[in-house]
Structures are given as structure tokens and as C-alpha cells.
């Protein structure tokens, strides 16, 4: 058996769940359609086969009760279990903000350290499939704004597996947001056990001219743009934070100190999105090194429209990134 294979992001997540469930009997899964749907689990196949392997008790199909599912997971986590909840779409997070924000994030703190809430809330972000306003939101910034939660957003199959295993082993509530368009992307992933620590960014492509911070679908667009612009001798350094809480700001700041220019690209709505947080932290640590304004290339400030002709102008494109970078260079270099 090979010590690495080409597998999808969805399969990588599936392996992480399987391995952690085998490793720790307190790990169990809760969610809608995670046991039977699609011939064995999960609208995006992430839990496929796990019900058969671990039983319906540990891979528990739930009613359509998002607030209740998350609340139940919190109670289970506070009493010795390690639940992993799946919310089918990140757009359903608004249904579960009460238990997530008022309970999971706060129990340990407000009880003076008495509680441990080791749970993972898996859901997703991302648009592009014509799923329209209620199935396309990227709400990670809300989570980042809540002390007591951690937040991971894997961009590749390798990271998806390594970060999920770490999240499950973490003794705190971790919100784990996958990207809808990445579930069936492939990468070589080792077979042996590995984990990726939360809070360690990855420099996906080194470059000396401009630092670009992006994750998930936007990361892949940034990398494509970097390849194109390299042909013109423009070298982008593309950084994937991997987790927004904890945030590896040092890697970003160190990069900006070298490139002196920063572009932040996220799919989430621009207004009050997390680009502002990265920008402030860079300003606080490296203002002197900035030779140009920090640039945002982000989702437009409207709900996601259905029609392709509209969706295309709302989601940041490679062209948007390229023109923003060209303008940055034209104006400031």
C-alpha cells in the first residue's frame, strides 16, 4: 500500500473523521443526512461510510434542528464527549448562533475555567454554484469576532485532513469551515497519521513584490494570478493563514516587511469582513514598511444573486485580482 495517494478534500476530511473516531471513542458525529444520504453519508460525502463503520449511535442523523444540534453538542462536550457537528450549509449558522456564541464560546470563561467544551462545528462557506442568497454565504468573520471560539478554514485536501484532526483533538470549540467548491479538488495526501497545528500560516508561493493573503477558493485564484503575473516579472507572495483564530500574523507581517505591499482577498462580503482585521494587525506591527495602501479584493456588498451573469460580478474573480494588483503597481511603484 502506497504511503500517499491522490484524494479529494472531501475524502481527506472523511479520513480525518474515521481516524479520530477510531483513535478516541468519545468522538461522535451529529448532523443532518450524515448517515444514509448519497449511499452512506453527507451531502458532500464527508461522512460517507462512517455510519456503517461506527454505527448510527456515533454517526447520528439528526432532525432539522440546527440550534438544537449545536446546543446538544455543547452539553455533550461539557460532559466528556468530543462531538463533531455538521451543519450542511454555513448559511444555517445564523440558526445556531445562540448556543455557539452565548454558550460554547463562553461556558469555560464565565464558569471560571470549570468547563471544557471540546467540540468541532463543521460547516462551509463559498458561492459559485448558483445556489443563491441563502446557500452561498461566507460568515467566517462573525466567528472570528467571538472570543472563545477557534476558526479553521482549510484550502487543500492535505490541510483539510491535518487541520480537522487537530481541531477534533483540541479541548475548545473549533468552528471548521470548508469550502463548497473545494470538496472534490484533489491532492496527494500521506497515509500515515499527521496533524497541522492551528495558528501556523502557509506561504503557498514565495515572492518579493506583493504579499497576497487569501484562503480556500480565493487562494487558488490568487495562485493562478501569481503564475500569470510571474510571466510579466511580477512576483506575488501568496499566504494562506489556514486558521483565522488563532491567526499567524507574524508570517504575514514578516512577508509585508519584505514586499512592502499587501493585498487581502476574501470571498466574504467586503464590508466589515476579516480583511479589515488583518489590515489593522499589519498596520499595528509594520506601518512603516507599507509603501502602498493595503488593497482589498473581496465579495461585493450584496446578497449572492442566482444568475451566473450576476454571480460573476459579486464573487471576486482572477481578473478582479489582476486589475487591483496592476492598479496598485501603476499607482504606487
Amino acid at each position, binding site marked *: 500500500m502506497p504511503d500517499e495517494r491522490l484524494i479529494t478534500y472531501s475524502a481527506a476530511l472523511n479520513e480525518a473523521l474515521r481516524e479520530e473516531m477510531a483513535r478516541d471513542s468519545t468522538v461522535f458525529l451529529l448532523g*443532518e*443526512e450524515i448517515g*444514509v*444520504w*448519497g*449511499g452512506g453519508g453527507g451531502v458532500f460525502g464527508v461522512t460517507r461510510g462512517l455510519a456503517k463503520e461506527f454505527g448510527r449511535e456515533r454517526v447520528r*442523523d*439528526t*432532525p*432539522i*434542528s440546527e*440550534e*438544537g444540534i449545536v446546543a446538544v453538542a455543547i452539553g455533550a462536550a461539557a460532559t466528556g464527549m468530543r462531538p463533531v457537528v455538521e451543519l450542511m450549509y454555513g*448559511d*444555517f449558522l445564523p*440558526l445556531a448562533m445562540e448556543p455557539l456564541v452565548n454558550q460554547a464560546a463562553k461556558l469555560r470563561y464565565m464558569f471560571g475555567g470549570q468547563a471544557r467544551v471540546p467540540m468541532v462545528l463543521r460547516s462551509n462557506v463559498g458561492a459559485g*454554484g*448558483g*445556489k*443563491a*442568497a*441563502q*446557500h452561498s454565504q461566507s460568515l467566517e468573520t462573525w466567528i472570528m469576532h467571538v472570543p472563545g471560539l477557534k476558526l479553521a478554514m482549510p484550502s487543500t485536501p492535505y490541510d483539510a485532513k491535518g487541520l480537522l484532526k487537530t481541531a477534533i483533538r483540541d479541548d475548545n470549540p473549533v468552528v471548521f469551515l470548508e469550502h463548497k467548491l473545494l470538496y472534490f479538488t484533489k491532492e496527494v495526501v500521506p497515509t500515515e497519521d499527521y496533524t497541522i497545528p492551528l495558528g501556523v500560516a502557509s506561504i503557498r508561493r514565495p515572492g518579493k513584490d506583493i504579499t497576497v493573503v487569501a484562503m480556500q477558493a480565493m487562494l487558488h485564484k490568487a495562485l493562478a494570478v501569481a503564475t500569470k503575473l510571474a510571466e510579466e516579472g511580477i512576483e506575488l507572495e501568496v499566504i494562506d493563514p489556514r486558521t483565522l483564530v488563532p491567526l499567524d500574523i507574524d508570517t504575514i507581517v514578516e512577508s509585508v516587511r519584505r514586499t512592502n505591499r499587501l493585498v487581502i482577498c476574501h470571498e466574504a462580503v467586503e464590508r466589515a469582513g476579516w480583511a479589515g482585521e488583518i489590515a489593522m494587525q499589519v498596520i499595528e506591527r509594520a506601518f512603516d514598511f507599507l509603501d502602498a495602501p493595503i488593497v482589498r479584493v473581496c465579495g*461585493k456588498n*450584496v*446578497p449572492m*444573486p*442566482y*444568475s*451566473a*451573469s*450576476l454571480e*460573476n*460580478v*459579486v464573487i471576486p474573480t482572477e481578473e478582479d485580482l489582476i486589475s487591483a494588483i496592476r492598479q496598485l503597481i501603476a499607482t504606487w511603484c
Partner: protein
Amino acid sequence: MVNKNDSARTRNNQLKGHEPTLLVEMLRRMMLIRAFDSQLPILSTQGLIRGSSHACIGQEATAVGACFALQPSDYVTSTHRGHGHTIAKGGNVRFMMAELLGRADGCCRGKGGSMHIADFSIGMLGANGIVGGGIGIATGAALSSAIRGSKQVALCFFGEGAINQGILLECGNMAALWKLPMVLLCENNQFSMSTRPDDVTSIQDLPRRASGLGIPGLKVDGTDVLAVFNAVSDAVERARNGGGPFFIEAVCYRFEGHFLADDLKYRSKDELAAWHLKDPIPNWRDRLVKSGILTEQDAIRIARETEDAVNHAVEFAKQSPLPNPATAWEDLYA
């Protein structure tokens, strides 16, 4: 669309006592819905419909029976499976189809698509991508009607899967407490995606949940358009006269997959075949023909007319341009 002199007296499951034209129109509307949703696999496979769209084939009697018991000014809220509800309430299939294809002439200008089909001009307050999302909106519409004294009734369609959403308790309680003019129509089509009601719901008799909220209710055969019409007519009359909300569980079956990608491994061909015997359209058709209200020829003609209407709608939709990208910045604020 509405049986003017409907009253409890005429509410028997016999055809006589009901206007023949209404009974025939029920058939036509059900056929129109079926013809419309029968296009979904084709258009999706052709890549003309994006995202996911949900067919209500097999459930036409619920949509038509319920909406025909309403006045044009009454309100309806729907679910992710909302084409039938919209057509039953009087929606224009051309603008609906254009919406499914994301075109400029769509009823939502291409911004909503299948899951957000809506037509406020006929009181159809929208399909909803959030399971249970329509319940609150319908309750609010009923409160609005009560405060304005407009006598409008709000009918809320939702699937049996929505029975476990907390919003049902919160809004059901308010509706009962305030005696709002509302009908909660729960379409129990036996599935929530791959899940059976018994796998996720603690009670088998769904009206019992409504009873815990102070809302009376009953079960009705959701494949019998007249039975649905009668039950909803009673509930609507009751609601309109200040009697408060009423819950109806319409028992039916989802003939197709949850959506196109559904492999349907979780149910048997035999089960489907058994339910096909209760197919609301041929059964209603035969009943009308047997009773002499409709001739075979008329039935065939109506079927053809509805298919033509849908084909024209598809043509219309295909002709309609994609929305101008600049319109993405419109309709955010009034």
C-alpha cells in the same frame, strides 16, 4: 380560481355540490405543475438551471387543493420545493421559468432562481431556502392581516421535515395565542432528503405537535385534491372568521428524488410503485371522466395545452437575456 360559494355544506368528497369548472380547473392546474416540474431534469442536465431545484411531482394535489381554497388576496409562503405552490396560487409559468433559467424576465429578475421563486402580485410571498423559513413570514402576514382587519388568510406550506424547527413552536404559539388567520399546511411527502419522518420526529401523528401549541389539526389524503380542498376550505373559513390557526397534515409522496443528484438508494421501487397507484393526476382525471364532468378528449386536450404552455414558457425563458450585470447592484434597498 376560487369556489365563490364554498361553505361547509358543500364540503363533501362527492363531486356534485362543487362547480364542475372548478373541478376541471383543478386538473388543469395539477397537470400544469407536473408539466412544469417535468422540465427540471432536462433543463438542469442542459446546464440551463443552476444550483438545485426541487420537483413536487406527486404532490400536485396538495398545492392545488390548498391554493384553490384561498382568495386571490390571501397569502401563501412556500419552501425550497415551491414551483407547485406558486403555480397553484396563480403564478405565470413564463416568468417562473425565466427565473429558473436566471433570466432578466424572471419574476425575481434572475436574482432568486428556483429556491426563491416569488410573486407578490398574487400573494405568493416566496419560496424559501431555509427549512421552516416561511413559517415566520406567514405568521407575520397573518398578524398584519389581523391588525389591518383585512380578513386575509395566510397559508404556510412546509414539509414534514420542518416540524422539528424551533420556529414552528415560537410562531405556532403566537398564532394560537393571538388567534391569527393562518393555516399551517404540512406536506408529509414521507421524506426529508433521505430521512423518514420516524427517523427524526418523536411523534407519528403530526397534528399532535400542533395541539401542543394550542392549534387544532387533522390529517388528510394529500393525493386527493378534493379532500385537500375541503379540509383547507374549512380551515380557511375558520381562520377568516376569527377562529385562529389550523394545522393540516397532507399525506403524500415525493415521486422524484429530493433533487436531481439524489440516487434514491434509500427507498424501494415497490414502495414507489405502490404510491404511483395514488398518483393524484390520473386518479382525479379518471374520476372526472367517470362522473361525466370531463370527456376523454377534453382530458387529452388539457394535458396537451398544459404541456404547450410549459414548452412556450421554456422557449420564452431561453429567449430572455441574462440580466445585465449592472442589475446586481439594484434591489438591495427600497
